[in-house]
């Protein structure tokens, strides 16, 4: 769930936000539907220098009975401490870690690798080069996807949440080629993000992309794919799911 001003929103290629409800209610609904984990990203936090709402995190923690990750605007340890104390299981860091990679070491040394998800927004150019972006896909960096993901792992990241900006919101499937390269070369779990539009896309990212988990937003928010049906389908395709 991408959260802005306390409301869940979903962009298409990171712009044109449409509202999709109260994050706490939506989180409860998804946990009852059989979602395995929830991710709440305060998508404007980094851009506007705001901090994720610890208040919303507390409400989520009181309401849902499955693990959840919170991200957006985390720049230092005290942000992490506040969010974990509010009840989050994991935090995801993105722009701040690209700007100051030591943040990953600090988080994992204090709270353990299992707490630290490194989220990466990357874009593939016409030459096939993947570049990491800052601030929700607004500012390109000098860092390449694969070398940055490797460094994040070396610094202690527990998971990589990779969003392909080329695929996000387009609903034609996940970036399986890049995902496979990440998953096969790294020893930490890779979460696929960006591009889910059909049940087959989930199957493909597990089988072809070697992803450890798949994340989607709008197809669930707008009821295009229902989680129980998706899981039934994946089981029928021989993929182990809860």
């Amino acid at each position, binding site marked *: 769930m991408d959260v802005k001003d306390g409301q869940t929103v979903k962009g298409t290629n990171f712009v044109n936000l449409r509202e999709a409800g109260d994050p706490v209610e939506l989180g409860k609904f998804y946990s009852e539907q059989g979602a395995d984990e929830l991710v709440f990203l305060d998508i404007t936090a980094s851009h506007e220098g705001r901090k994720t709402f610890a208040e919303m995190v507390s409400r989520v*923690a*009181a309401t849902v*009975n*499955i*693990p959840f990750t919170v991200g957006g605007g985390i720049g230092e340890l005290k942000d992490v401490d506040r969010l974990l104390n509010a*009840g989050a299981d994991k935090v995801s860091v993105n722009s701040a870690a690209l700007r100051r990679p030591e943040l990953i070491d600090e988080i994992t040394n204090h709270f*353990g690798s299992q707490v630290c998800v490194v989220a990466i927004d990357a874009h593939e150019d016409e030459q096939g080069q993947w570049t990491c972006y800052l601030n929700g896909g607004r500012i390109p960096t000098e860092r390449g996807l694969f070398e940055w993901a490797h460094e994040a792992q070396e610094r202690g990241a527990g998971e990589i949440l990779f969003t392909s900006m080329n695929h996000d919101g387009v609903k034609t499937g996940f970036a399986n080629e890049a995902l496979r390269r990440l998953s096969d070369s790294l*020893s930490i779990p890779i979460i696929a993000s960006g591009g889910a539009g059909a049940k087959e896309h989930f199957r493909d990212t597990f089988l072809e992309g070697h992803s450890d988990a798949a994340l989607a937003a709008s197809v669930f928010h707008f009821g295009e794919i229902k989680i129980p049906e998706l899981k039934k389908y994946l089981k029928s395709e021989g993929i182990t799911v809860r």
Partner: protein
Amino acid sequence: MKVAIIKYNAGNIYSVVHALKRLGVEPVLTDDPAELLSADRVLFPGQGEARQAMGYLREHRLDEVIRNLKQPVLGICIGQQLLCRHTEEGDVDCIGIFDADVKRFCPERHEDKVPCMGWNGLRVKSEKLKVKSEKLIVNEVKSEELRGNEVNEGVNPLFQGVNDGDYVYFVHSYYVPLCTDTIATANYILPYSAALHKDNFYTCQFHPEKSGAVGEQILRNFLKLK
């Protein structure tokens, strides 16, 4: 019913507070020995590093308090590990309720990622898994064959209403090998203890407070224990 949660320097204790509240219980978070000793139920949850956690417990004499608890106690995650004899994490002696030593997962294939993080199936259809030693398990008994070693078909009261194959949520790098106090197993790299029981002490390696409806059933069972 007075339910106490042991307050110490471990993380993620609030998840357990919230989970109990969802079941209609208002737990007390405390490190006061008198309060802990007089509670009807005590939970010993948390995530953290074993050496630091044991250091803190000893410094505050909570290790002695825990040993002397007579009411049902539920250790969760590092709580389970600290109730064992020793852990490889920080090479530290623990509280010693369970006659087992905690070991670190050794990955064997690329797919074996440590920490073990995520949902995994439980096997609960046996009051006690009759196993002689960890060596036997690792070398001779594959997980499928474990079934044949079960002599008691009963399910521990902690797992009433929980079925073999039900999924629960794990986050850990260290595990308790199978032992005589094992009441549920999971399989990740190798079969290991997902839950233990001895006298009034019950433990889960997984997080019932994060395990959806199955986890809620386990917590409800714990509150109902005689």
